């Protein structure tokens, strides 16, 4: 059996927040590995630390202890500006509330991450058109976010996430603000990106239907990774919350 090397190595990660004089632990000694081409869902009740873990993997937050390696690079050792450059090259983000820039149209929103590359204007446009075609919005390039439905906005956000061909795509509750039909379309799109393009996707979700599209589910509870929870049990836990 062929063993796929891990693209993300999470080793003994801990994180706590300070609330006044109180120190609240959020993640406690988390260790696991994500193979290349994996589609993983992080589940767990509210406050379990799944978004914090996702932020640390994506390099927008730092752990108190532990190491995160992505494609062999220890990102916890990078400075802020090195981390920004690393994110621009290796991470595609999909947010719950799409986070598109309202004064830019779909094409311009997708073009944003490419401004940090050395591509020419023509090359940038070609990349954006391909990305928007992949998400099925080639005919909505000139539309501003306010002129698009929630599902369409999320697809533009996915196009923005894939346009730089990143090493990993992180998605934080990508269906959290969508109706059921749009949520299904988005999950099918992410599944297609994983299956057809081999993209490694790490997704935080509360939605068991969304989690079902993932190949692996990790369940977090009170900052601890609970590997004993079966998928069905995880669904039930999440449905409770």
């Amino acid at each position: 059996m062929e063993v796929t090397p891990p693209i993300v190595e999470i080793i003994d990660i801990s994180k706590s927040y300070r609330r006044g004089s109180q120190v609240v632990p959020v993640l406690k000694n988390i260790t696991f590995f994500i193979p290349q081409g994996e589609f993983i869902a992080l589940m767990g009740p509210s406050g379990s630390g799944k978004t914090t873990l996702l932020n640390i993997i994506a390099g927008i937050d730092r752990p108190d202890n532990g190491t995160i390696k992505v494609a062999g690079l220890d990102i916890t050792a990078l400075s802020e500006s090195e981390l920004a450059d690393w994110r621009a090259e290796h991470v595609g983000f999909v947010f719950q509330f799409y986070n598109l820039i309202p004064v830019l149209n779909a094409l311009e929103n997708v073009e944003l991450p490419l401004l940090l590359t050395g591509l020419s204007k023509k090359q940038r446009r070609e990349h954006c058109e391909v990305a928007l075609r992949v998400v099925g919005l080639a005919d909505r390039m000139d539309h501003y976010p306010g002129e698009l439905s929630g599902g369409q906005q999320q697809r533009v956000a996915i196009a923005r996430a894939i346009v730089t061909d990143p090493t990993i795509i992180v998605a934080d509750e990508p269906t959290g603000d969508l109706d059921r039909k749009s949520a299904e379309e988005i999950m099918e799109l992410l599944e297609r990106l994983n299956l057809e393009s081999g993209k490694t996707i790490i997704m935080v979700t509360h939605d068991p239907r969304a989690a079902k599209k993932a190949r692996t589910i990790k369940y977090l509870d009170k900052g601890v990774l609970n590997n004993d929870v079966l998928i069905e049990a995880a669904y039930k836990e999440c449905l409770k919350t």
Partner: protein
Amino acid sequence: MFLLKLLIRNALRHKLRTFLTVLSVAVAVLAYCLLQTVIDAWYSGVRISSSTRLITRNAGSLILPLPMSYREKIRQVDGVKNVSFGVFFGGVYIDEKNFFPNFGGEVKTFLEIYPEYVLTPEDKEEFLKDKRSAIAGQKLANQFSWKKGDKIILKGTIYPGQWEFVIKGIYKGRDRNVDETRFFFHWDYINEQLKKMQSTRADHIGFYIVEITAPELAAVVSERIDSMFKNSIAQTHTETEKAFQLGFVSMSDSIIMALSAVSYIVIMIILAVVANTINMSTRERIGEYAVFKTLGFGGLKIGGLILGESLIITTVGSMLGIVLSFPAAEAFKEKVGTTIPVFYITGNTILEGLFISVIVGLLASIIPIYRGVRTPIVEGLRRIV
């Protein structure tokens, strides 16, 4: 291009707020330009002062006269090229509110020493020939609709009587710094009458204008002239024309200081207005900046976005203010008439207006940039929810 488009669209997100901020910058820059122009007008005499002209006056006071006999002695001083004299006449035209400076003098030498007062050769010839003639500046002539050949009566205040002059020419300034609101005539005309009526006041003048051969001789020639009359009944004080003009300006020091203070207060006010607008925009967009940072935009780029928006607002406002200051200055000039003879917006004032817009844009964005750059991504993203 992309970023400029983004900056403009960001600035136009709250159209009313941006419009009001631009308008307040425009009004402030307009006020600054007008105040600076008023201050400049005070110094117009200093600006056109020649480095080869000296003024010799009574050492006791400017209002005390000097004997006409000094003229030939001054002419003999080494380094002196030409000598003229002038008397501030203080005549009133019809009513005291029609104030304009009127001077008697030795007009031939005066026109030689002051080439910036430009007359046509014909007008000059006629003016020099007729002792009862006078010349007026173009602005002054325009104000009272005077033309060549008109008879003008000035009521003497320092030299009592009704004095009739015939306009023989309208002079123009060689450039726009030259005062075109003056009235010049032959002192001989007044002096001859004084000899008959008030002989003790005759053959005395107000000040000498001394043209020297080279600017570097100013101190030596001044010293030579003043030492020559050291033990005479009317001692002299000689100084450069510039120092003489600055002496007048210094009498209005407190007014100039007040005007300068007001113009700086105006700048502080626009700084506060712009800082408030940029601060509000940054606070509203802290989540978006977090998204930019997530995508890999570094602190410099985020700072650039905030600074760029601030500069767009202040520069547009400043340019609008500068454009509006021209018609405003014209209207102001019309209103004040000959009270402020040289009044125009200089290139320096325009550059200062633009410089202020850059400085205000820069200062107003310091705190918003700090906030935009320093807010952690995770905290910024939380603000979107």
